[in-house]
């Protein structure tokens, strides 16, 4: 990459998507599964005899993590091509 502006823009776009992913990462684990669990318990939702917070703590967060990593990978592959920094 020769153009400094394009390098800065590529990095800024990367940092932005990282921030979005980390917000979701924290929301499903520290949020839904731990700190916000009392809020989820007030919802009239029940899964297998318990609340959504318990599901997020034991399964939902892990499933979300997997989706997050593959989404990030897909997005970054597109970004790499867009900025011409992908590997041949």
């Amino acid at each position, binding site marked *: 990459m020769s153009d400094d502006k394009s390098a800065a823009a*590529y990095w800024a776009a990367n940092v932005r998507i990282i921030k979005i992913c980390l917000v979701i990462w924290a929301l499903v684990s520290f949020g839904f599964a731990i700190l916000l669990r009392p809020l989820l318990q007030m919802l009239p939702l029940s899964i*297998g005899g318990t609340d959504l917070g318990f599901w997020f703590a034991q399964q939902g967060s*892990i499933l979300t993590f997997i989706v997050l990593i593959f989404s990030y990978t897909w997005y970054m592959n597109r970004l790499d091509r867009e900025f011409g920094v992908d590997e041949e």
Partner: protein
Amino acid sequence: MSQFTLNLLVVGGSFALYIAIAIWARAGTTSDFYAASRGINPVVNGAATAADWMSAASFISMAGLIAFVGYGNSTFLMGWTGGYVLLALLLAPYLRKFGRFTVPEFIGDRFYSQTARVVAVICLLVISITYVIGQMTGAGVAFSRFLEVDNTTGLLIASGVVFIYAVLGGMKGITYTQLAQYCVLILAYTIPAVFISIQLTGNPIPALGLFSTHAESGVPLLTKLNQVLVELGFNDYTGHHGSKFNMFLFTMSLMIGTAGLPHVIIRFFTVPKVADARKSAGWALVFIALLYLTAPAVGAMARLNIITTIFPAGTTAEPITYDERPDWMRSWEKTGLLAFEDKNNDGQIQYYNDNSDEFASIAAERGWEGNEMVTFNRDILVLANPEIAQLPPWVLALIAAGGLAAALSTAAGLLLAISSAISHDMLKSVLTPNITDKQELLAARVSMAFAIALATYLGLNPPGFAAQVVALAFGLAAATLFPALMMGIFSKKMNTQGAVAGMLVGLLATLLYIFTYLGWFFIPDTNMLANSPDNWLFGISPLSFGAIGAVLNFVVAYVVMRITADPPEHIQELVESIRVPRGAGSAADH
């Protein structure tokens, strides 16, 4: 065929497979030895990473940890998987682009300082050596349990096998054996779980069974479990009975610690491209999740199974008598991991929570004089699963091979991290920079042999604190290596002084906090404060301190960086180059 012969055949067969792989995947160069010449398919690397990551603790102990606490110990599930998001987003792609062989190598080169390199080597050695002790003792226990040899012989056989494939094949040999070990351990873990799930809920997928209806009672499995636990004076399974703050901090420490463990990070140096490093982290988590989604189901179902076995007519009715206990209890009593004591001499087994004040009056009313299942080692849950579910003997043999695969695959990854830190970072980079590739390869093999000897010695003479060291390893990885690596990538201006000060403060603060409550070097009775929530600083448990150590590291590094000189121009250019994927192929041949 007897159970013993079957165990011997299955375990022996799996070992023969590992050795055959080692002979096929010999290492010819240092690039082979340290990074499998960066030719590993990202999906294969994902499976190898999963085996590398899932230790004897994940395989044998995790289901039990969750079973006996319930919701509160979901921290392990989230903490040990959430770290992979950090790895994929913040570290793996850039470290792969950097294109070297070890974690201290990145820290030393990026912070243009031998001091930084040596501090990183020290952190790596403390983390990896404490971690490997648990794997070696785990392998020894699995051997003595299933193959009727004594602990020492078992440990020596295990070391011998690791020696063959790690010294011969280095990273290349370790990668392909880890792939095979992943297949063995995941089959061993899921087969009994599927049968137990079918028996209890009719659902063949344990992760779904956990949230299904309990076939016998017609209510959801978790509702049934909560009900029987409360009826015996225990805390309910799905409720939280601890501090939310510590649950948050502990999960955070495990996540950051996971992302900072050197033996996991170096696995991402083996793939051909930067894009592969991202993808590989995703696959690693898929393979890990296959076990981690099954483990909480195994935990909950096994706990319910034990209670319904002891109270066949319901927890409000009479329990079974001691003479009626099932065969698996009889066989595990012989190991001492399960023990009963008839405290009120009525011949029955009363299993309940005798620490609950509220339940004491009910217990007294029923003529109970204390919990009579006096010992129940939580590791039994996974190991005895095939017997509890009355599965054929070959499943038990598979569990033996699976437990060994989990311990050996993690041990091999750790040993490689240790030996490459010695041969590559200490010898090649600091002490004897002029050695040739051939000499370095020999040095790497000798260091590996030395690391195996050390691990075997520590496995035979475990320094009585094996249980606490895992907390230490995660805490230190979180407080030292992770922040240094992340700042090296995300801050162009971070300099030697900042990084070294940050790592040292993170290291010392975490050690000091853990030693204050758990004793200096874990020696009993040398702790300065009792390890109880009233004494903890702001109520922070020593196990959860890694996240605080990481924050201290970041803050100190930032402040020191502001008052010292900027890094040289070529270092800032280096940071710019690792941020873009193009050119990773050429970096591979460096």
